[in-house]
């Protein structure tokens, strides 16, 4: 009951924020009712996916200040669990998603335990190393299709198939993900108010002080890491049924891990709306830049160049992200 009350408690935000959030939520719900191109729809789904990834990353990376650059391995575990279970044993999505989450969370405990003994740069590089080991393993493991990957054939499972979550129209995927998106916001909102959330912010601000106050720093980090993993792996499962082609390269590459961290960073790490703002700006920018400059003008890589410039500017000029910028503007206005 307490948890539910915390999840629904948005009272610490100013009223204008909540109005804006409500308008955005209404637009998101109404989006498929307006005329849209399939490209716009795909972009919106990407936006929702990366918002949820970012929310997960934000718990450990934003609130906890632990720079995790290995989230892609959990995208992969989620995606592969769902795909393998569907293809080999015809297990529906609704069963395989929790199984994938359990596997990912289990794995996150196994590697989280040693990982969180490291700090700072050492931790960040170690997360990359574990992710690359997993990717290497999946690239030679025949059971999961090795480097060829797995393919979920929509012919074999005629859409619409609500049990296996295989549809022809993207709208269904969109609404499914949107539901998960709202649920994610509530969970993160609960996390913000929870004991764990406060412990983690204390750890970020001063780890030694947090320890001296009796917080079990190591265990708090591991628990939060598991929560972040659950988010990421659930969307990974969704990725499997939505994209239908799963290869180690596009589920587990370092680029995915970085992208996840980047969304949250750009929007504002350690704030509820940060990852959503970040994904809302970066994903459309990325896909439209790719469409206009990459595909149409034939300049391969130019979208990622501009993208890299944005990363560099944000990290050099305003490391707190857009949310930090807004916060600063607001404070300047109030003091005037």
């Amino acid at each position, binding site marked *: 009951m307490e948890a539910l009350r915390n999840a629904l408690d948005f009272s610490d935000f100013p009223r204008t924020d909540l109005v804006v959030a409500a308008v955005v939520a209404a637009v998101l719900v109404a989006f498929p009712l307006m005329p849209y191109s399939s490209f716009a729809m795909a972009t919106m789904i990407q936006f929702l996916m990366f918002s949820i990834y970012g929310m997960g990353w934000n718990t450990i990376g934003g609130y906890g200040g632990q*720079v995790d650059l290995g989230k892609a391995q959990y995208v992969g575990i989620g995606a592969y669990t769902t795909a393998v279970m569907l293809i080999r044993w015809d297990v529906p999505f609704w069963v395989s998603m929790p199984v994938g989450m359990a596997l990912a969370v289990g794995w996150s405990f196994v590697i989280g335990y040693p990982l969180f003994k490291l700090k700072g740069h*050492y931790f960040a590089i170690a997360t990359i190393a574990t992710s690359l*080991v997993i990717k290497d393993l999946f690239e*030679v493991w025949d059971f999961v299709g090795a480097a060829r990957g797995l393919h979920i054939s929509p012919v074999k499972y005629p859409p619409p198939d609500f049990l296996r979550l295989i549809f022809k129209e993207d709208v269904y995927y969109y609404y499914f993900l949107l539901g998960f998106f709202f649920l994610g916001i509530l969970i993160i909102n609960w996390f913000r108010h929870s004991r764990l959330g406060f412990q983690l912010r204390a750890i970020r601000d001063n780890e030694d002080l947090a320890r001296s106050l009796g917080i079990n720093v190591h265990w708090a980090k591991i628990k939060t890491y598991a929560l972040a993993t659950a988010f990421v792996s659930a969307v990974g499962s969704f990725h499997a049924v939505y994209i239908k082609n799963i290869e180690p390269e596009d589920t587990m590459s370092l680029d995915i891990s970085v992208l996840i961290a980047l969304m949250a*960073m750009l929007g504002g790490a350690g704030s509820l709306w940060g990852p959503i703002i970040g994904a809302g700006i970066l994903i459309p920018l990325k896909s439209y830049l790719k469409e206009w400059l990459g595909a149409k003008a034939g300049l391969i890589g130019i979208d990622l*160049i501009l993208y890299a410039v*944005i990363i560099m500017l944000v*990290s050099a000029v305003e*490391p707190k992200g857009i949310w930090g910028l807004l916060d600063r503007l607001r404070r300047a206005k109030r003091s005037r």
Partner: protein
Amino acid sequence: MALDVLVASLVAGLLIGMVLALVALGLTIIFGVMDIVNFAHGEFLMVGMYTGLLVAQGARMEPLLTLPLAAMVGFVLGWLCYFLFVKFLLRGPMVAQLLGTFGLMLFLRNLALLFFGSEDRAIHHGLLVGKSISLGMGVSVPATKLAAAFLAVSAFAAVWLLINRTKVGKALQATALNAQGARYMGIPTDRMNGLAWGIGGATVTIAGALLVNFWAVNPYVGLLFTMLAFTIVALGGFGSVPGAFLAGLVVGLITEIPGIWDSLSLALDWRWMMDVPMTSFKYTWVYLAYFIIMLARPKGLFGWKR
């Protein structure tokens, strides 16, 4: 029969290890001086590889003569990166530093993709190409690798002398030990940071120009070397120059273990060994090594800082 495979692999591992030590040198210097991890390090190497390749092919020049030019390109690149970009990162939190150099990595990689395309390219001409030197016991090594190892060690020694035997080097060390104290003593720490990036860039581009003689280059080649360099630096101790050299040799040997396994399983005709072809896990061992070293001894073998 099996012995020559072992010796050949060990020699190959040591030779590549010497080049890898040079790759890691810049990373460890930069880390030692200002506590920042450069994720774009492998991309600097790629720039060196392309410099060596394009100059050698464009001017029909002996590939090994492109080294001074590669060093210059690397120095300027590192210097510019520091003063135009990294300088501003230093004010921010660690998250910003990590993602900032990550941005640099993406930037350089995709710039290379835009200019050079994604295909593999390699040098096929030069004095040493196709020649090999016999070491006895039926073991012979390609001359390009031998020359690369020799020149890498020379460059490494030169940088070590620069740091330990010159006034500038002493100032660099002072900045690394205590930047604020160094500033009070009148050392321009900002310029020292820039110099560290310059030296870091120059050493790694030299390594790149050496590597491209026997290693194909494409815009994505950087990540592997970044991870190799991280492992070497972790093993040798963040900031330790002699540590980087020894650790380079060790990591070079680690990358050859899977090859030894596979050749032995072929030579001895042991079925159970052949069922696990290790060569596809070539670099997995390096990542695992990083993980294990960090857990066992976070300071590294020769760590002196913290």
